């Protein structure tokens, strides 16, 4: 019997929204427990220092303070370094930080001590009285100097700052370069800032007074990874440790890793036998939540006389900060993304991962792909310019064609599997984006603008993204004795609307409305195993688990109903939470009745072929990642006298396979583009020569506002993935990935009368003015132009 397909593919309103709209969200700081204490952390003010002594007596004596803990006060199990969750043999120094610094601090903001008090106000008063005697050490303050021989090392006792070196090749790039007709070279210095979800991090830990269960609520993206770490660090019985992510106010990647504060707050709750809550404030988020930051890309492209790519060589250095909590996933993804949607027969990429005395870097929306895309898209633009063909045309000549799918790139992806683009029509996607953007009409627009004294430009950015990362995300679909349907999953939503999309998938299989389905997410007691929400993986993993589990439950409903109604399954239908005999009104069993029967009664055997319970657990495990793709076109205007840049139009053609809820996907793209605009034009996380952060509030670090982000014009192409039953791919990061490339290309195009080249991101107005000045744009006889309306 075909599924109803009433919900999958429809623009359905989210079930999460009414509570959130009423202010009834339950974010971790909204949770209050009797006797709850609040914590604040004492953090290193130095980028690199040895700790000589810590004096806590004055802090401890403050009225209202319950505890002041340092490394030595932690249980022995928590005195080790926090786990490195993604090991890789290429890592020379798999170093992570201690829960509280033991002897050495390696970035400004590293946790040194925790103060637990009756209120956050009092805790901060006391924290100011904790005296730490530091012996400052030389800091590895900046990426390009930290990698030089003889540079100050980020960790004392280290020989150098090279954390890992990765080299990957396919074909023979050196040979390809030898026979190239055209070689184009450029060095791109790229900076991506921080995640900055509107809700910063937070943890609440509580031991139940009767059961002794330790429950940890955390604003996170991966409850099972968190539980895994806490079990080890607290030497706790896994059966009595529960991790829950309640409502989470955005994540974008960094909330998915494990942090020292999580272990310390839990340890404090255990030690004091009282609930302890720590809420990260925004300043702490700037200092101590992971971010992406800097990479330098030496990029070379070899082409033949028809502008077909022969080879690509990339040598990249990456600032990973002081530790490697997420291994080298981020730089790995960055370099393996570089070939993009193009046929690049010979590639050599090399990444050197460098320690600096800054907060560690881990993936932020896009996860290194923006940088790989930037290098490829911009070097293609440069090649097009030198060869004298259109930027759209050079791409057209090199795109992987649909007939070449599945297309093996030649690299190994972060999941240990080969990079194989499974499906997608890249030429159609580019064509669609160019059509949305009226690319064909742009030359005339640009001409007209120039005659009016305005400078506008257009830029293209395309990407391919590995999504649906395994190994699994499970779901239990269960019909309850009251007839309601429950989905329990390890997915950990923080804005993606999982509860709605997963319910849509289930509803189609069971023939019920969304209002009959309850979805439990991000709770380690709700399902046995899980991974979490990041890397655009949930629709593929959890979505298919729900799909398969719901199909299995449908079969169980039919089988049991068939037996009880003495009717062949082919004559039954599922509607309105009942299994009914087709065409015979009144002959049905309700879901509730069937669930109760399946619960079993002592002594009554189940009939042949009927198993107990009206539920099914499925852990869908993808064979490998499935690749989505997109093309972005940005149109900008530059005020050449102030350097102000305005994004006039933004178009996206996007293919992430079958869409469960296009309304939600549109939102992901629009939000992703906003983040990309931030990366291109506004966001810079600055450090000085002593690795001191210099942008530590929202006045200094600029996020895009409603006046900075235009309406994104979107077209969805749906090339189903052949790698999962639903034919879906991930969609959460595509909006961000090529944005900086497209926008930078557009700015350069706008300034082409002056020959200005942009090889750095972000692009700030002052930089534009400096480049224009150097190019002679302000010479005495240069005509004056009109301002850009803000």
């Amino acid at each position, binding site marked *: 019997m075909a599924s109803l397909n009433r919900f999958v593919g429809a623009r359905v*309103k*989210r079930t*999460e*929204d*009414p509570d*959130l*709209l*009423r*202010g*009834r*969200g*339950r*974010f971790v*700081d*909204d949770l*209050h427990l009797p006797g709850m204490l609040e914590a604040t952390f004492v953090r290193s003010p130095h980028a690199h220092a040895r700790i000589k002594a810590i004096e806590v007596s004055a802090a401890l004596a403050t009225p209202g303070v319950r505890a002041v803990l340092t490394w030595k006060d932690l249980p022995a199990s928590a005195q080790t370094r926090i786990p490195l969750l993604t090991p890789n043999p290429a890592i020379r120094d798999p170093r992570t930080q201690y829960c509280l610094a033991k002897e050495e601090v390696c970035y400004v903001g590293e946790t040194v001590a925790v103060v637990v008090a009756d209120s956050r*106000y009092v805790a901060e008063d006391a924290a100011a009285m904790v005296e730490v005697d530091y012996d400052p050490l030389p800091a590895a303050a900046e990426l390009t100097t930290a990698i030089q021989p003889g540079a100050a090392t980020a960790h004392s006792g280290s020989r150098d700052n090279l954390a890992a070196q990765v080299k990957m090749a396919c074909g023979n790039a050196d040979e390809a370069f030898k026979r190239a007709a055209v070689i184009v070279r450029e060095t791109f210095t790229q900076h991506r800032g921080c995640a*900055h*979800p*509107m*809700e*910063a991090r937070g943890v609440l830990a509580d031991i139940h007074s009767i059961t002794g269960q330790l429950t940890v609520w955390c604003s996170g993206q991966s409850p099972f990874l968190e539980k895994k770490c806490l079990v080890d660090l607290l030497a706790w019985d896994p059966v009595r440790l529960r991790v829950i992510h309640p*409502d*989470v*106010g*955005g994540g*974008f990647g960094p909330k998915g890793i494990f942090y020292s504060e999580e272990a310390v707050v839990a340890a404090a709750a255990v030690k004091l036998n009282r609930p302890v809550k720590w*809420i990260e*404030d*925004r300043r702490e988020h700037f200092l101590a939540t992971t971010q992406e930051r800097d990479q330098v890309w030496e990029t070379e492209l070899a082409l033949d006389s028809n502008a077909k790519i022969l080879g690509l060589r990339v040598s990249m250095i990456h600032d990973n900060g002081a530790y490697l909590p997420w291994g080298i996933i981020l730089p790995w993804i960055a370099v393996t993304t570089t070939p993009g949607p193009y046929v690049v027969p010979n590639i050599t990429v090399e990444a050197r991962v460098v320690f600096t005395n800054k907060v560690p870097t881990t993936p932020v929306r896009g996860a290194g792909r923006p940088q790989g895309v930037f290098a490829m898209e911009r070097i293609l633009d440069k090649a097009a310019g030198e060869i004298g063909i259109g930027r759209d045309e050079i791409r057209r000549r090199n795109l992987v064609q649909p007939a070449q799918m599945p297309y093996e790139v030649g690299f190994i992806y972060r999941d240990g599997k080969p990079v194989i683009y499974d499906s997608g029509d890249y030429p159609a996607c580019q064509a669609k984006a160019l059509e949305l953007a009226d690319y064909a009409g742009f030359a005339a627009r640009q001409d007209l603008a120039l005659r009016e004294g305005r400078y506008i430009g257009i830029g293209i950015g395309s990407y391919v993204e590995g999504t649906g990362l395994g190994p699994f995300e499970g779901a239990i679909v269960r019909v309850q004795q009251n007839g309601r349907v429950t989905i329990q999953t390890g997915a950990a939503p*923080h*804005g*993606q*609307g999982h509860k709605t999309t997963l319910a849509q998938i289930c509803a189609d299989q069971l023939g019920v409305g969304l209002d009959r389905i309850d979805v439990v997410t991000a709770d380690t007691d709700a399902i046995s195993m899980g991974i979490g929400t990041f890397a655009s993986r949930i629709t593929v993993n959890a979505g298919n688990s729900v799909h398969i589990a719901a199909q299995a439950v449908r079969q169980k409903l039919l089988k049991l109903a068939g037996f009880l109604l003495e009717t062949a399954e082919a004559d039954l239908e599922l509607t309105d939470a009942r299994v009914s005999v087709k065409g015979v009104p009144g002959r049905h069993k309700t879901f509730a009745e069937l669930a109760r029967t399946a619960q079993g009664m002592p002594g009554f055997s189940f009939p042949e072929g009927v198993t107990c319970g009206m539920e099914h657990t499925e852990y869908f495990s993808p064979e490998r990642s499935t690749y989505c793709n997109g093309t972005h076109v940005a149109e900008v205007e530059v005020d050449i006298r102030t350097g102000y840049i305005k994004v006039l139009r933004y178009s996206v053609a996007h293919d992430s396979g079958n869409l469960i809820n296009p*309304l*939600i996907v*549109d*939102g992901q793209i*629009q*939000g*992703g*583009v*906003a*983040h990309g605009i931030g990366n291109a034009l506004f966001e810079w996380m600055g450090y000085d020569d002593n690795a001191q952060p210099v942008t530590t*509030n*929202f*006045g200094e670090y600029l*996020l895009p*506002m*409603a*006046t900075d*982000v235009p*309406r*994104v014009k979107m077209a969805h192409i749906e090339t189903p993935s052949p790698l999962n039953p639903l034919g879906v791919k991930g969609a959460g990061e595509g*909006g961000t990935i090529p944005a900086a490339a497209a926008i930078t290309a557009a700015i350069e195009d706008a300034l082409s009368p002056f020959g200005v080249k942009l090889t750095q991101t972000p692009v700030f107005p002052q930089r534009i003015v400096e480049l224009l000045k150097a190019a002679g744009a302000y010479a005495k006889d240069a005509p004056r132009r009109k301002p850009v309306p803000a």
Partner: protein
Amino acid sequence: MADKRTITVTVNGERHQREVETRMTLADFLRHELILTGTHLGCEHGVCGACTVLLNGRTARACLTLAVQADGRSVTTVEGLAAPGGELSPLQQAFWETHGLQCGFCTPGMLVTLTEFLNENPAPTEAEVREVLTGNLCRCTGYQSIVDAALLAAERMRARV
């Protein structure tokens, strides 16, 4: 000894009398004294707008207001926007339909800012909506669906009158 005052604040029409430390912010008072947790803290330095409430009918950042400054005054929070029977306001309903929220953390502030704005501007342009929203940051939506919600709500409220 902590400096304390007894204050009386009317919040969403209900009077509350509490003794508070004078340094306590209005945001913390609402969230932790009255357990009205709909008003959120995103930055505590007056940029993100997640803490926006109405203070004597005008939007104010609750993180930049002391609780004692609300003494004798009235505050409206997101919890006070729906109708007494629980029906969503036209603005809340519009947000739901346009997918004007994803994680929901900035949403209360957005709703309060737009409630004040639409009361004064029943027929705003898209540019005017974007301009008033610059006092509220969102990291999830890219703003378009929020703008659409405001315009949709305005249109419906004009049709009602």
